[in-house]
């Protein structure tokens, strides 16, 4: 990809709120019920029905708003977005348009690019607004007709909109993962992406690096996995750059990503865009939120990732980035705190979780919730490294055993498998002497100034102790012996 182009991304995320009933009716929001069994007369938009706002959905919006440091609008307005579609029963969607409930705010997260070091990024939010979901059109299996399932109609959504401040698909994915973890952390969303509880629209444009103005943007709709989000953006960026480099121009339009073909295709252009004729919904009074309600919800909130990040870096001496990594989800943060509470070296706890544990989780493609090594076991393992019972290399082997389902205690494993570190100088000296005697050639290379030969000797000695020698002691003794032998010559 040409380096002379800069990617600009803004995301709109539809977060399905975890309320028992719909946003404007008493019907259940449970997923997977038989078609149209969870649609009340309100959801069906029968003549004479009226919407009544679900207070639980408002509380979810306030929770998120507080968590991202946004302004909770004391007065916000529901509007009607008018368009005809068979799965939109009223012929309009109730949404918030000019005055949304959540205004501003920001989200910070760690980005790990494909190459180069990780870094901390902050993206500002434009707004988050409450709205209702539409139903579903089912075009298959109806003998030439379309089926309509209105179970989803009226499901509460919070649409979270960012400023166009992301500069790569890696940043977009990191943002989306962080928002996902946050809404689950706050308990406002079940986070189930397969069921559509968290879906992103990406606004993507490119411009020459350093260009002051944004390029023409394209909106890619309905990305319901982080992988698709990444692939769709990468594809779209390539498509736009190729088009521009070939002298073409980008048309403002909405595109759909096809994961099977890994490409985006046009859905509708701006010229075709509907005029939604927004106007304030006369069936709903403006939503007024008192400072008292905001304070009550603030008091009920769990410790937020930002506050926890600060506390972790302060109390455990972690870097801001490490603290951010460990607070990527509430489950991960809880795991870290459990381990850290049980060890004397908290930095070691952080390194283990971000290193060995994360690598194993990634390899197995599972979340920390399903980590097979309980926090207490990991803490015991770390403590045996800290107190010198085992060395780091042994600890990694031991971790692999625990990961594989070894259920006995760390101490029992060390004993039964004879993994205890050898810190007896006499024993190490004996091994070193044997290694030196058996590897005269390598010793000669060392004497000829080849420092690499030293590492080879360390390796030989370590191997002879089956990896259990205290590495520092081994190093020191080997240096002594080599120096002493040299003098003797």
């Amino acid at each position, binding site marked *: 990809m040409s380096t002379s182009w800069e990617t600009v991304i803004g995301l709109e995320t539809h977060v399905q709120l975890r309320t028992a009933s719909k946003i404007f009716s008493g019907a259940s929001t449970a997923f997977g019920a038989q078609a149209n069994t969870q649609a009340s*007369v309100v959801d069906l938009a029968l*003549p*004479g029905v*009226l919407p*009544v706002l679900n207070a639980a959905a408002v509380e979810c919006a306030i929770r998120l708003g507080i968590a991202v440091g946004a302004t909770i609008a004391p007065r916000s307005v529901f509007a009607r977005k008018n368009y005809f579609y068979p799965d939109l*029963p009223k*012929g309009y969607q109730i949404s918030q348009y000019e005055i949304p409930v959540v205004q501003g705010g920001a989200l910070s997260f760690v980005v790990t690019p494909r190459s180069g070091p990780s870094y901390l990024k902050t993206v500002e939010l434009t707004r988050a607004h409450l709205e209702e979901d539409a139903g579903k059109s089912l075009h298959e299996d109806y003998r030439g007709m379309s089926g309509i399932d209105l179970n989803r109609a009226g499901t509460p959504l919070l649409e979270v909109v960012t400023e166009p401040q992301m500069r790569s698909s890696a940043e977009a994915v990191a943002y989306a993962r962080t928002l996902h973890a946050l809404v689950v952390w706050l308990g406002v969303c079940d986070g189930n992406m397969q069921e559509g509880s968290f879906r992103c629209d990406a606004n993507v444009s490119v411009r020459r690096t350093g260009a002051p103005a944004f390029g023409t943007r394209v909106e890619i709709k309905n990305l319901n996995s982080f992988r698709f989000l990444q692939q769709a953006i990468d594809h779209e960026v390539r498509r736009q750059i190729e088009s521009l480099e070939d002298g073409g121009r980008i048309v403002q339009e909405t595109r759909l990503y096809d994961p099977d073909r890994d490409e985006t295709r046009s859905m509708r252009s701006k010229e075709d865009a509907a005029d939604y004729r927004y*106007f304030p919904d*006369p069936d*709903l009074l403006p939503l007024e939120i008192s400072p008292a309600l905001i304070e009550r919800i603030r008091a009920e909130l769990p410790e937020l990732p930002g506050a926890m990040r600060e506390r972790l870096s302060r109390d455990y001496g972690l870097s801001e980035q490490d603290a951010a990594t460990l607070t990527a989800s509430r489950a991960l943060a809880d795991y870290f705190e459990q381990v850290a509470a049980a060890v004397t070296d908290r930095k070691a706890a952080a390194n283990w979780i971000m290193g060995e544990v994360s690598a194993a989780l990634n390899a197995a493609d599972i979340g920390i919730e399903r980590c097979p090594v309980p926090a207490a076991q990991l803490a015991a393992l770390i403590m045996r490294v800290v107190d010198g019972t085992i060395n780091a290399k042994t600890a990694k082997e031991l971790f692999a055993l625990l990961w594989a389902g070894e259920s006995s205690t760390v101490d029992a494993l060390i004993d039964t498998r004879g993994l205890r570190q050898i810190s007896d100088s006499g024993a190490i000296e004996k091994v070193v002497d044997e290694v030196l005697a058996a590897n005269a050639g390598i010793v000669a290379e060392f004497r000829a100034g080849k420092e690499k030969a030293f590492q080879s000797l360390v390796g030989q000695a370590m191997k002879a102790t089956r990896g259990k020698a205290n590495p520092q002691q081994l190093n020191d003794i080997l240096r002594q012996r080599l120096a002493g032998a040299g003098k003797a010559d």
Partner: protein
Amino acid sequence: MSAAPPANLAHASLAQLGSLLDRREVSAVELASTYLERIARHTDLNAFLDVRPETTLAQARAADQRRAQGETGPLLGVPIAHKDVFVTQGWHTTASSRMLEGYTSPFDATVVESLAQAGMVCLGKLNCDEFAMGSSNENSAYGNVLNPWDKSAVPGGSSGGSAAAVAARLAPLASATDTGGSIREPAAFSGVTGTKPTYGRPSRWGMIAFASSLDTAGLLTLSAQDCALAFNAMLGFDPKDSTSVDRPREDYTRHLAAGCKGLRIGVPTEFLAAGLEPEAEAAVREALRLYQDMGATLVDVSLPNAALGIPVYYVVACAEASSNLSRFDGVRFGRRAPQYEDLLDMMSKTRAQGFGEEVKRRILVGTYVLSHGYYDAYFLQASRVRRVISQEFQRAFAQCDLIAGPVTSGTAFGFGEKSADPVAMYLADLYTVPSSLAGIPAMSIPCGFGRLGRPLGLQLMANHFDEARMLGVAHAYQSATDWHTRVPAGY
């Protein structure tokens, strides 16, 4: 409270019917039968769209049973008929549109339910302008309603069926809705009492929406006293309607004996000006003189922008209607075009065939004023002027307790006289629209007849939630006059 009942049971007041039922001199079944018989005899008025005697009589028997078990209540066993924009489980609900031909609602409107809980017996559903859009009832898909006073004249609209039914004593009272005058104008044209309470006081749940920020349920009755009795059961907070106001229920009869002594009646100078026909002005001035005789003082007040009410109303109401009527798309209920190519074609044809001309006109106007590039100039500007008009009412109410004036510029017009000219028809709402925009209670009471023998009405308007006093002031007038007791010949 009530004098001896008239010879004709159907000419009795609600209070009289109530005491007849109390004293077991008549049963709810007998009462219902009396009205059903009259309805069957006067089908030429075309006031009713759906009559089901068996369902009505079953409700009447249930009311008699409640009384037999010791229950009492001023409305228990008294019949009522409902405008066809209130959804009902036992009768079709069409809003007088082809779009909803044969539609039956799975639930009752709150207004219908509240009155049924009080024991009222439903006589059937009443004709009106399609989706309550009109001032003459000429926009019903099911034909014109005739004015019982003069069958060549319109009964007014949109609640023409409600007004004609009460005027002809086919029902002792009827529910109705008022968006810009749809209760008061037909009340004036048909010589009955029509009352629109404060917006937010009656529930809109189950009332098929025309313009949600204006639609208000009310009643057509034979008197202010009858209205007060029924309002006691009908008006109250409804959690199913977000615009319903959470206030305790009140007794709307409490000011009926208050009289008018010391009352300050505001008369908007703009309402007694050019455009008002002499006979209408004379009747209103005569009524005001009577109020003075009864101890009230008249105060000149001004509503300088009241005339802008018409354009403001037709922007706001059409905008809301264009959105409210989107649900009639042939997908889930009601009419679906018999033949179509695809989804879009199905929706287009369904709406083209299902809606009448006036409904289509208003949907087009509403769509236009909400469109990108026109919203600010039309909808937003109209919303601003609406607020100005509301403020002018508040300034007027600082000087007076009640406002009085004409309801219409003259008596009922003839069929076809205005239907070719929509703007002339819209101007019929000149005196009723401002109070609708302000959301205040207003009513029309009979105050005389024009030279053609057609009725005239006096409009009373009160501040928000002051309907009890307004009804008391109307009752004082009706205690001193007999216009409201006149029955058209043949009924």
